[in-house]
């Protein structure tokens, strides 16, 4: 593949991923400034604003999980149903007398196990990840309804709902701390470890990864385990935040989570992007949505704005990359169309 045309560089030397993240950070800052100054009730002395994160950080946790899978060039459509399922399993175990934290741990481990099963089915039978996780989404939905029954348990111990849900340390909501730890861990995992390098490399080019000695199947399986694990954690956080569970409580998080991953600059075909972008995008989308609601705008309009932002951002990104020439996204798209692209 030919090198891109030589270019004049001025100012900061950042790569495109860093530029995208800088743009997101600027956007976030501008958004917060606008809502704080222009919308009554948004700022709330800072604490009010921080508390709004409780209503979207669960999406961020799920987005990180899906992010691992998307980095590897796969997709996981089961995350939403997984989060609902995990909440129900935890609640039912708790109702049977299991200590809540133990119940949460067991439920999250079950999610990771299901993720492992997804990964094994997908790699061993060489099935499309979209297909397998779509099927799994249906199955998990039925399981959650069956286990939850007519009256799913609610009213968890205060310590649990406080630490994993709505509590705070000083002015900082507990969820932000959880999200920061998870986010930091995931950024390190993708960009500072051998596993992360394999993950990005195989998403970038599976054959090349294989030639350089990466165990492609096992790396993909691990990505699915992480996706299941994080969807499970998201399920626990949702259960703690709302102090109840429901067989469809996590379902509506899936599409916003994928939106956050893509807006965060991760290539939907894998192999490119930065996990930190996903963290930024979570806040950009979350505050945009909450801010619009507090401004008194209907949820319907807010959803439309969210969809518009996604499409416009991607069109701009792709358009600019295309104009830049060289190994553009469009080129990758074309390359992706060739038979060798997807094993």
């Amino acid at each position, binding site marked *: 593949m030919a090198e891109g045309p030589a270019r004049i560089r001025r100012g900061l030397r950042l790569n495109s991923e860093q530029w995208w993240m800088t743009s997101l950070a600027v956007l976030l800052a501008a958004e917060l400034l606008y809502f704080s100054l222009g919308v009554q009730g948004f700022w709330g002395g800072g604490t009010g604003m921080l508390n709004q994160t409780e209503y979207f950080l669960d999406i961020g946790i799920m987005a990180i999980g899906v992010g691992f899978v998307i980095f590897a060039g796969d*997709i996981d459509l089961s995350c939403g149903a997984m989060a609902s399922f995990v909440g129900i399993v935890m609640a039912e175990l708790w109702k049977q007398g299991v200590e809540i934290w133990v119940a949460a741990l067991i439920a999250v481990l079950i999610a990771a196990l299901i993720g492992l099963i997804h990964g*094994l*089915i997908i790699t*061993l*039978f*060489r*099935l*499309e990840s*979209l*297909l*397998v996780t*779509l*099927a*799994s*989404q*249906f*199955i998990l*939905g*039925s*399981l959650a*309804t*069956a286990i939850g029954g007519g009256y799913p348990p609610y009213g968890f111990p205060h310590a649990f709902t406080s630490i994993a849900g709505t509590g705070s340390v000083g002015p900082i909501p507990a969820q932000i701390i959880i999200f920061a730890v998870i986010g930091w861990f995931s950024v390190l995992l993708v960009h500072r470890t051998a596993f992360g390098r394999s993950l990005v490399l195989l998403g970038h080019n599976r054959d090349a990864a294989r030639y350089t000695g990466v*165990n492609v*199947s*096992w790396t993909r399986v691990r990505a699915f385990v992480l996706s299941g694990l994080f969807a499970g954690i998201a399920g626990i956080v949702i259960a703690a935040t709302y102090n109840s569970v429901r067989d469809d409580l996590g379902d509506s998080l899936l*599409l916003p989570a*994928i*939106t956050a991953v*893509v807006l965060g600059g991760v290539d*939907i*075909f894998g192999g490119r992007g930065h996990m930190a972008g996903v963290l930024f995008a979570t806040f950009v989308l979350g505050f945009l949505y909450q801010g619009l609601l507090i401004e008194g705008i209907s949820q*319907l*309009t807010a*959803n*439309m704005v*969210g*969809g*518009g932002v*996604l*499409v416009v951002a*991607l*069109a701009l990104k*792709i*358009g600019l990359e*295309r104009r830049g020439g060289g190994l553009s*996204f*469009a080129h990758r*798209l*074309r*390359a992706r*169309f*060739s*038979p*060798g*692209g*997807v094993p």
Partner: protein
Amino acid sequence: MTTAPSPSPLLSARPAGVGQRSARRTLSRLLAMRELQLVLVTVVIFAITTAHASTFISAGNISFLLADAMAVAVIAVGQTIVVLTRGIDLSVAPILGTAALAVGFLAQNHNLTPLEGLPLALAIGAAMGLGNGFMVALAGIPPIIATLGSLAIYSGVQAIVAHSQEVVTLPPAYFNLGNGDAINGIPYLALIGAGVAIAFALILWRTRFGRSIYAVGNNAEAARRAGINVSRVTVSSYVLCGALAGLGGLIFLAHVGSADSTTGTDSNIQLTAIAATLIGGTTLTGGKGGVIGSFLAAIFLEVALAALVEFRLNPIWEPAGVGVMILLAVLADPTTGRPSLRSALRMLLQSQRART
């Protein structure tokens, strides 16, 4: 990137061709055809269920099941065209809903006949599909993202069209269309659905446009070099998918008899249509499969789920049934060269050994 020559899409799509060496081989090839598999399985389910409950095979039930499956079937045909180009359309639900509402309101307030509603439903669907096509083909946004965005936007459009009103009273012509029988046991809707499926099957197999759909899905770069206007083919596939979703909206309206701001998006109709596409033998990697399989798979899903009810299975397991059927359908596809369960297990054991 590799540009390996790919087999003709026509041959790969229709494994049972001419030149068979032995009858046995022909038989095994025929059995490998997804369309035939679906027909056989559906018939077997019908036989077993009828043995359990004789009313299952009544003309009334057959007629209802066929009519009930047609909205999904028609959407699945459209979805198949997009998937054949290696795309996907996640926005068909609000397209269906918007078309159903627009036609429904005009029928309710201005006595629009179904025949007059048809071009309107198709036009609304095609226009929305055109938006998707532009985003995918011209802006270069990956299909799953582009249609995820348009899902949010079109859902808003549907709510605006609904304007907090509901379609509640339709002229009798709609009920006759949606639930009436042409012949005993064969509803009008089934004729429409079958007509659509056959027409698109012929278009895909017999026309230059149809072949270019397979070509784009198999290898867009090769198709481009062969002189196919890939952008135009891609846009057309989304327009057709949208138009068929619009037709699905009209069918839905006639069959269910009402529509509101969440029609389509509130149910699993979109995912069920994707499931029907996959069960019908069309692969997400594009270029392989066909609309007849998707059409038959929609009927198969309907019959299978009705049979579950007949066997007194709790309806909460219906989604799981769909999920299991998707997995079984792809695992039972012998034409893909996918490893068998045994060889997969062997691979697993070997990889474990390699790790230790």
